[in-house]
């Protein structure tokens, strides 16, 4: 059974595109057939994060308008066995596609793929409605900030209303050093407030910036903590029971001192 998962957030810039790129790659590494669908029409950047921007010929709007075949618009990521990208149009309006057309497209993709991951634009308008139209699962990305959690709550309400039940939460850019000082909301705080199931926690990680510069998702970097978090999330999506990773700042001087004095193991 194939799954159509929309990755959404309400607030912009919290890490939707990063999440789609990494989880998509993660699932492909688990030998799944995956297509990443960029629904951010007019502001596409999933292609850039994936490093596939130079290979675009056709896009989502071309497919919907019948200018090309679906197969022609799919870009195969040669670094992985079965990973494809369907890019968004860069020069069209969001209204170039209707929710019905998106649903049709997703149904067609379901025949060929195990996972269809949709990168949703920020906001709750037309682009959001398009992105969720064909989805049967949702991942909500938030960061530990008041505005991001507030918007996540709004999205949860909207998804409930549009009968997309049981969205799961990804908390991105968590800084355990700040959580420890009491200067950042922790995982339990956010779960309690939003009352939804946690899918994973991704730490703030400069490797994300580096990997985005190179167009190589951080998940393929074994040294990246965020990459590790995304690997865990991918396995959870596949139904595995993977415990939350230890996000504590390791090897910092204070930590080593605490270990030395037996305050911490």
């Amino acid at each position: 059974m194939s799954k159509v998962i929309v990755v959404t957030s309400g607030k912009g810039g919290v890490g939707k595109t990063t999440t789609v790129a990494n989880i998509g790659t993660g699932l492909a590494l688990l030998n799944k057939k995956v297509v990443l669908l960029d629904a951010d029409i007019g502001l596409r950047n999933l292609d850039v994060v994936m490093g596939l921007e130079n290979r675009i010929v056709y896009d989502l709007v071309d497919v919907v308008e019948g200018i090309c075949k679906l197969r022609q618009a799919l870009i195969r990521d040669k670094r992985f066995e079965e990973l494809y990208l369907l890019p968004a149009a860069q020069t069209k309006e969001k209204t170039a596609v209707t929710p019905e057309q998106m649903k049709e497209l997703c149904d067609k993709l379901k025949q060929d793929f195990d996972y269809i991951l949709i990168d949703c634009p920020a906001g709750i308008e037309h682009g959001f409605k398009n992105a969720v139209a064909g989805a049967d699962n949702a991942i909500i990305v938030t960061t530990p900030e008041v505005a991001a959690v507030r918007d996540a709550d709004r999205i949860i309400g909207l998804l409930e209303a549009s009968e997309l039940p049981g969205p799961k939460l990804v908390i991105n850019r968590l800084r355990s050093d700040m959580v420890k000082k009491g200067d950042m909301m922790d995982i339990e705080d956010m779960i309690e407030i939003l009352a939804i199931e946690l899918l994973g926690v991704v730490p703030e990680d400069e490797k994300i910036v580096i990997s985005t510069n190179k167009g190589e998702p951080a998940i393929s970097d074994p040294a990246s903590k965020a990459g590790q978090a995304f690997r865990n999330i991918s396995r959870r999506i596949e139904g595995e029971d993977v415990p939350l990773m230890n996000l504590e700042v390791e090897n910092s001087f204070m930590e080593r001192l605490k270990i030395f004095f037996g305050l911490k193991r």
Partner: protein
Amino acid sequence: MDIFKIFTREDSSSKEVAKERLRLLLVHDRANVSPHFLEMIKEELIQVFSDYMEIEEEGMEIELTRTKLGKSDALVPALIANIPIKRMKHLPK
């Protein structure tokens, strides 16, 4: 005075401030999302009160605001209902 308060960050940490602000925000957000929310509450309140009194339904007002809790200055969300009574019913003793 609680001397230990000085040493615990609980109340003053910015995370606690963030949590409180969020809680307050979400009460209002969630209530405002549905235009029927207050209507639904109003209908049910009328049901409950009618057992005890006759109320002036037209003059009934219900709104979501904020109020101070106890002696502290902290604002908490509050549901304020203004229910004009026309006549009390005879209650069984």
